[in-house]
């Protein structure tokens, strides 16, 4: 049998568009694979027919609606988390999970013995854990500099301070952590910049939040600013460090435990 590989855009909608296409093409699920673009694109396979699937919002939406209706909102969440991960096989895992889900309904998420379900759960868990970690370990710095014009904040937004944070996540977690911080800091202007995927979550005081792509390319001065502490900020950071150092019970010193609970990769300078 000829193998069919569908390449799609690396986004939740892109992957769901390709799933829609796979169902339309009817090559047989066992002989069809979905890959995200950019991953080993030049890595040609013998005896495989490749197709590029463009993003189609309507197709993606119809798959999403069917998924929520037939497999449930838990499954939908797991698929969204998986689609935001950096797992190389995520698109194919989502596709084959959906094939099982549309056949078996809501109980599919509990099929631990199925390799695709198990894999989806593994990726989902990894992304959830990373989301929690950034909720815990992300730090904000306060800026007094004037950045209102470039930030596209609404007219009249109170701009005397802006909190920024720079993170380096493996998955595209910004969209997952913004609800938590928006709920927590309704009266702050803040910006969380993911320098790995070059995207930012932006929240205006008293308003809602949105995601902005390619901030680093469009507004390099803002991206650069997220790494900098102003003088007044250094004062607060010194206070925190003084507190942090003093609360260790020296007799219980345990660097290994500390680093297993808080991996060094979360310690941004």
């Amino acid at each position, binding site marked *: 049998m000829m193998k069919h590989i569908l390449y799609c855009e690396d986004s939740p909608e892109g992957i769901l568009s390709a799933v829609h296409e796979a169902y339309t093409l009817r090559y047989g699920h066992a002989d069809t694979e979905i890959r995200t673009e950019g991953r080993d694109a030049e890595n040609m396979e013998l005896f495989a027919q490749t197709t590029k699937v463009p993003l189609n919002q309507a197709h993606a939406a119809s798959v999403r609606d069917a998924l929520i209706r037939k497999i449930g909102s838990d499954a939908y969440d797991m698929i969204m988390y998986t689609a935001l991960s950096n797992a190389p096989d995520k698109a194919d895992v989502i596709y084959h999970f959906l094939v099982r889900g549309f056949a078996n309904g809501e*109980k599919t998420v509990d099929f631990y*013995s199925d390799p695709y379900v198990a894999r989806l759960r593994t990726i989902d868990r990894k992304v959830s854990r990373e989301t929690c970690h950034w909720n815990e*370990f992300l730090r904000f710095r306060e800026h007094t500099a004037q950045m209102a014009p470039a930030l596209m904040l609404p007219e009249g937004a109170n701009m005397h301070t802006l909190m920024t*944070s720079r993170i380096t996540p493996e998955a595209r977690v910004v969209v997952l952590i913004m609800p938590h911080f928006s709920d927590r*800091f309704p009266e702050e202007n803040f910006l969380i910049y993911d320098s790995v995927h070059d995207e930012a979550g932006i929240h205006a005081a008293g308003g809602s939040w949105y995601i902005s792509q390619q901030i680093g390319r469009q507004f390099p001065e803002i991206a650069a600013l997220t790494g900098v502490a102003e003088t007044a900020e250094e004062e607060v950071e010194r*206070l925190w460090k003084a*507190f942090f150092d003093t609360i*260790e019970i020296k007799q219980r010193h345990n660097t290994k435990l500390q680093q297993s609970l808080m991996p060094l990769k979360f310690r941004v300078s």
Partner: protein
Amino acid sequence: MIIGENLTLEQKLEILGDAAKYDVACTSSGVERKGNGHGIGNAVKGGICHAFAADGRCVSLLKILMTNECCYKCRYCINRAQNDVVRATFTPEEVASLTIEFYRRNYIEGLFLSSGIYPDPEETVKRMLEAVRLLRVKYRFNGYIHVKTIPGASMEITQEIGWLADRMSVNLELPTTDGLRKLAPNKTRETILKPMRMIQNGIEMDQRVQQDQIHRIGVSNDGMILAGGNVTGTPKDRFRVRRLSAENEGMKNFMQQRPDGNMGRFVPAGQSTQMIIGATGENDYQIMSVTEQLYQKFDLKRVFFSSFVNVNHDSDMPQWGGRTILDREHRLYQADFLLRFYGFDVKDLLTPERPNFNMLLDPKCDYALRHLEKFPVEINRASYQVLLQVPGIGVTSARRIVAARRGGILDFADLSRMGVVMKRAVYFITCKDKMMYRINMNENTLMSYLVDDSSRFLLTEEGVQYEQLSLFDFGMGNIGQQVSGA
């Protein structure tokens, strides 16, 4: 006494952070509260750790004392009255603004406020109340606040704090009255348990009002609380309302003090306590029995154990116990989880004849080895409660097993994917009525498998019975003893 004058904020923070660090009851869990769209903050049910100190302990709250001046003479405490240490005091405004500035930067989940007692309990609590009120009212802080109850303060003021705080705790300090008399001469069991009971009653009352069981509360002249209006509670509920009033004078004012608005819950995250372990001679059985009583009789959310550190270099008291005391503390916490989440009772784990935990095995493995008649259990049939008793299976994996069985029959390979720790569980389970390996179900053999290599040498030192392993123990012979099926 050295009074620190003109201390900078940083110096105060160092002194008062250092002074608070031995208190371990400092999680930020127990209450889920969304932001209200104004002010600052929310609370997450599971709590959030924002950092881990160099000793591996979680940093969740800004844990500080209001002041380290103290008129008490507790022998385990660095701040006792007779010590020559630098004394510092925060103003309520300093506490509030530090909390807010750290919170805005996502350093912390909220505030943990304790205090030395100076000049007396009532004045001490007044200052603490002022700081907490500033946070809630002036700064409109909606995040987590844990306030230490000061034994000896009036019920009225303690209760006022309860309406503003998420969690309160009063430290039992030591597991026995004897220990308390010896080490904390200014504190008594009574002054500790009284506020604990008051907070318990308040929480119960508040929850019942929340559940709409009692719509209106009236107070009669003799201080009895009368349930009026549409009482939907059972006769037992009504009896409890009367019991509450009989036990507690302060209950009279309880409902009247309830503030309006979003924050109007009484200690919604419940109360906790801590005990110092290793300072006095209590055994694990005594400590766990007290713990169980606290859960049952005072509805505590958590009981914490704090390994004794001899900060005052008191020659009558033990020196720092190193790994031994930390391992013991670890066993106590493991047992504490078995009580709270796994349906175990203290009598399952320890007895007066066997009063201490096995240092080589965690309490659950230890229990399983002493109850081999209950094992192995069949993964595809065992109830949730039975699964919870299997070493290597936790609350999450037990729940997953029960859910996954609906989708098909489970085998060993599926279990590790579901988070079961197979190196422990494998000796106690069957899948499709078969064990994974042939295993000699004998206490000593299993013990030798379960104790990890690093601590195996301890077997002889601790005097635990130990047998040289033979090939037969690995199931390579002796087929007659092979166990299969449940």
